[in-house]
């Protein structure tokens, strides 16, 4: 077990290395110039060239890469061009709201979708199933920005219950923080919830007709327990996977929602950094996100073995 985890953790290194190379090349492949972004559209070429030189952007790519990787290995991810702080700080600051948001969204999603997905599968074709499926259909197809705007109009403008945008850290001001996180949490959670609900339903349908369910029923196990404990565990591999993926996706995929609700999260940071070619931040954030993906997926892989004893990931 420990050896497996250790091996997996070791295997993160080559992945991070490859990702860093890919990201570095991708970034430098894209047109656009941070120096020009800093100086604005009226800057002369000489000014831009001078700034590029002082930022080290005129050096050969390999040299720039090695310099960056060298820094990363010593824990120095460089400084942002625009944020007046180091990349580590920037990620640290922006990860907090993102993670809070992701956690809220994923909790909302799980709490809603796993039970509803399971019930929908159980009563397949029935009224409950159809309405749940209808909702998930909307959750899946309505773009998150539309949902976000609709929420804003209703709760921010018409009812005036919640602030339109902005972010307050709930650890500093709990009520205020929660108020700012509710709408983005719902907007983000909705699409995730739709996906998890559908996946749960599909996975539960796969096992619902198994004989062991009938057998457990014959022993008088209550339908609810039968569904939520017996069936669900058999169906949980895909469900766990989709939850893991969504969690990872929420960290980056939240960009649209974060932008709309103006939450200073990683997604927004990444998007704005890409727009203004803030190389160190882009690289740092992507490495961070890669790490998150790798770790959640490692966790999920471990959970597979716990949930389904027949599955042994990473063994021949």
């Amino acid at each position: 077990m420990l050896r497996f985890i250790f091996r997996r953790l070791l295997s993160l290194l080559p992945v991070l290395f490859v990702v860093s190379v890919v990201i570095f090349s991708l970034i430098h492949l894209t047109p656009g110039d941070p120096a020009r972004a800093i100086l604005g559209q009226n800057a002369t070429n000489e000014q831009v060239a001078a700034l590029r030189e002082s930022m080290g952007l005129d050096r050969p790519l390999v040299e720039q890469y090695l310099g960056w990787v060298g820094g990363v290995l010593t824990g120095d991810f460089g400084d942002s061009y625009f944020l007046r702080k180091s990349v580590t700080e920037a990620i640290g600051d922006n990860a907090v709201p993102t993670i809070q948001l992701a956690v809220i969204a994923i909790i909302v999603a799980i709490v809603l979708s796993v039970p509803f997905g399971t019930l929908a599968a159980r009563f397949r074709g029935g009224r409950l199933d159809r309405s749940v499926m209808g909702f998930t259909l909307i959750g899946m197809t309505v773009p998150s920005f539309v949902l976000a705007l609709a929420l804003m109009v209703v709760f921010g403008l018409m009812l005036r219950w919640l602030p339109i945008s902005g972010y307050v850290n709930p650890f500093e001001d709990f009520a205020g923080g929660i108020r700012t996180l509710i709408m983005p949490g719902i907007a983000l959670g909705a699409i995730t919830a739709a996906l998890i609900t559908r996946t749960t339903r599909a996975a539960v349908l796969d096992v619902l007709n198994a004989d062991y369910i009938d057998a457990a029923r014959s022993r008088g196990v209550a339908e609810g327990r039968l569904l939520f404990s017996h069936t669900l565990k058999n169906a949980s591999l895909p469900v766990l996977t989709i939850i893991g993926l969504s969690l990872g996706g929420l960290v980056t995929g939240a960009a649209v929602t974060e932008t709309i609700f103006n939450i200073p999260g990683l997604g927004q940071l990444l998007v704005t950094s890409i727009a203004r070619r803030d190389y160190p931040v882009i690289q740092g954030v992507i490495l961070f996100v890669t790490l998150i993906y790798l770790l959640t997926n490692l966790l999920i892989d471990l959970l597979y073995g716990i949930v389904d004893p027949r599955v042994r990931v990473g063994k021949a």
Partner: protein
Amino acid sequence: MAPNSPATTNTAAPSTTVLAMQPVAARDSLWRRMLGNTGLMTGIVVVLVIFVVSYVLPPLLHLDPYAVDPANRLAPPSAAHPFGTDNFGRDLFARIVSGASTSLLVGFVVALVSGVLGAIIGIAAVFNSVLDQVLMRICDGLMAIPAILLAVALTAALGPSVTNLVIALTIVYTPGIARLVRSRALAVTSETFVTASTMQGAGMLHLMWRHILPNTLSVLVVQSTFTFAESVITEAAMSFLGAGVPAPQASWGNILYDGKSVLMQAPQMILITSGFLIVTVLALNLIGDGLRDLVDQRSRSLVGKPGVFARMAAVVTPGRFRQEVKR
């Protein structure tokens, strides 16, 4: 534990009286089973209609999705413009109808390609732990690369085109599907019937295709339809950045995106387009669910009445289907 029916103790404990049971025989031919599956048929019909409409109507009605008329921008629905106009005064009906082909194309190709690739990767991964490690790490890495960056870089390298967009979106969606399929496949490979097939000397391909794939179909279908919807929407975000569908060309995603900034003035842009998208995705869902029912006879729960399609077919070809309809 005492039996709780003391009164009847000595008479009958269980007494089976005149029991008759009729398992309903499966409908035989694939074609009949499809006809019997109303959801599947509805889905197919709807998708066909949308396809036909998007490819046939524009030339037929001489729809011009590009004709601008700024004086008439954001007009509500009227006789001249049944869906109203967009922020350039272009006819929304023409744009939605002709945008359908682009969106459907992008959505279908991405959903299909990433579905197929994801299924292959996910299933292949369960056969070999080294391969699994390599493939899954690659997927993890790919998942972290943001779609925007990929789009911008691809456009820079290859120029904007729908193909590049499809490539970028496929790269973005495949890893997730692969992981999901893998999770189901992992459980399936430990089933005895897979061992049984192995024991008959089945090769990897056979196992993948005949045993594991059908069993992962359910999650695959969910994920693919989701990918369809997502790529239709994401397509717009990418086009916004210059990757993908060239600017004035209509696509549902573009219309949604344009509609966002005039949500208050012209809600119909988002409402109508979303409506179309929902119907399409619904149809795809029906097809997906139906396909799943075709392979998985066991979970098919609805019996009895033949669907409308079976009845219609019975009317058209009376001899062949009468028997079934009666039953």
